């Protein structure tokens, strides 16, 4: 996984609540068996008109937001399906951080596993950041994970909370399967105990 340390970049304003995963990447684009290549269909139903041409009204089709690395939105970002294609599409496009008042649980989990940092900040702060973002390329935002601050173009620092374990994994780009496998003897022990206590749990035979 790509580590996330600090980022200074263009933020795209998306002043909408309930940005769901069907908006982020519609189901018809989930047929790939790869992890990459989803960026071109990020927000496809908004980004492209029915004839396939770009919709100039959509923020990510406008300069400088074509190069946005941060997205700022409102409540319940990432609600809907469990598709990890949503963070894959965002990161493939180039977005490494989403700032919103809150996130749907599965999207929130999935983001951390893909080097995409979800930052929760109150609605009023998100509204300010959206106003900053509307200023465009000269108003870059900085997200510093180690110090847990978002820095506005004015230099004002806004602290945010993040789970310490997730922060550690993200700062170092660590894969958590390797970490879990260090506990394999505990898993073995659990399975042995469960086998005698709940013998009905084992075994598929189709």
């Amino acid at each position, binding site marked *: 996984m790509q580590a996330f340390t600090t980022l200074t970049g263009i933020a795209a304003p998306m*002043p*909408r*609540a*309930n940005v*769901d995963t*069907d*908006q982020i990447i*519609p*189901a*018809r684009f*989930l*047929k*790939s*068996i*790869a*992890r990459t290549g989803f960026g071109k269909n990020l927000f496809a*139903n908004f980004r492209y008109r*029915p004839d396939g041409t770009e919709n100039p009204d959509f923020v990510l089709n406008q300069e400088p937001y074509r190069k946005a690395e941060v997205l700022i939105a*409102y*409540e*319940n970002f990432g*609600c*809907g*399906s*469990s*598709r*990890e294609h949503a*963070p894959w599409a965002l990161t493939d496009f180039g977005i490494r951080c989403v700032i919103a008042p*809150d996130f*749907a*649980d*599965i999207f929130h*989990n*999935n983001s951390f*596993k*893909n080097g995409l940092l979800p930052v929760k900040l109150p609605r009023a702060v998100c509204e300010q950041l959206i106003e900053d973002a509307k200023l465009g390329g000269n108003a870059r935002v900085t997200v510093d994970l180690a110090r847990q601050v978002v820095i506005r173009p004015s230099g004002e620092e806004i602290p945010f909370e993040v*789970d*310490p*374990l997730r922060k550690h994994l993200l700062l170092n780009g660590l894969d*958590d*399967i390797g970490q*879990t*496998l260090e*506990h*394999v003897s*505990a*898993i073995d022990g*659990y*399975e042995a105990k*469960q086998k005698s206590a*709940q*013998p*009905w*749990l*084992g*075994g*598929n*035979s*189709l």
Partner: protein
Amino acid sequence: MAADKPRTLFDKIWDAHVVETLPDGTALLYIDLHLTHEVTTPQAFEGLRQAGRGIRRPDLTLGVIDHNIATDASRYSGIVDPESRLQVETLEQNAAAFGMPLIPLLDKRQGIVHVIGPELGRSLPGMTIVCGDSHTSTHGAMGALAFGIGTSEVEHVLATQTLLQKPAKNMRVLVEGTLPFGCTGKDITLAVIGRIGTAGGTGHVIEYAGDTIRALDMAGRMTLCNMSIEGGARSGMVAPDETTFAYIRGRPMAPKGEALERAIAYWRTLPSDPGAVFDREVKLAASDIAPQVTWGTSPEDVAAITGTVPGLETAGDEARRAQLQRKYEYMGLTPGQRLQELAVDVVFIGSCTNSRIEDIRAAAAIAKGRKVATGVRALVVPGSGLVKEQAEAEGLDRILSEAGFEWREPGCSMCLGMNPDKLTPGQRSASTSNRNFEGRQGPGGRTHLLSPGMAAAAAIAGHLADVRDYQPKETL
């Protein structure tokens, strides 16, 4: 946790599955059943391959193909769409290479992953169940802790049979009283989401309780738990009881004989203790629920079928007014419009929410002796080959076909627009599925969520209609 502290159903299942607690409070949680399908697994298997890992417990893993496949006869001659075909073949190859049991595409047990788990007796009370699909919450109806995960977590479970998780908060939705005529589990769940909002359950596991819930059959409980995710909760649960045990008995993969009796004795210890504390509680009187239908592009945009499209004055601030305006525009609505005026082009009865035999019976009861309105396309897509077989044994397929409904092969179908069944731009559907998001059933499609009986009534009326006006002409 002290043994004498009253615990919830969630607490008990959680505690029983903690392998280890890490210093920061994250638990390594053991997973009893991992269900897989073709869409959210290819990258997970690729990850295993790259790391030289295998599946730790293939016997606790079960795959099925559901999202991509056509629900017409074309499935018997192979999948036409090359990307869909590749995804399905990839699952078949991965199952063979990693030793994962996979229900073959043309097997009669094939179906929607959240239909087949309970139906085969594989999803059981007290289990932890995961799947790379948000509607895994469905299996919570069995009295299990079941939730959707992303593909990285799918890989984690394949490799370790565990997940790293922080405990959720407990939320109880208490529904009391007799459910009014014409109402179902679907109407309860839509009413709950209307009340709490699409983010109302975020960070929580919902336990549905109260005598209304106790009186629901297993299919109704599955519909209810299925849509917990649309209220933001990762999981919904109903405590196991005699209804649950009767459902499990005799199912092909369920424990039998003495093993079953021993399991039932354990399952009886699972319901929440008296005095168990819930972080949040929501109460509904069943008598306040009327047949529900969504009008907007979020499941929380819901009203009684006798209602109207809400006006702009219901929006609190400018941003919300803009959002409401967008919903009107996308859905082709006028504020204040009566919901029953909305003409439908397509009716879809199916999906992991409402494709069980009980749902097909409810639709057939309304359809019998009536005709689908001219110009309406109505599909009935059973949730599995076994549901299809049962429905055909009961003659429901003939009733529905005679009424003008298409009787299809099992699969996810028009729930999500990634197989040949989808809406075209501007088409309006009455759908028993779970999401009315923009583009969910196909780009530009307009979705109204409702129960199977309500969907059948809409097909016959040609517009959104009140199921209470279309009661069975005769018993089936």
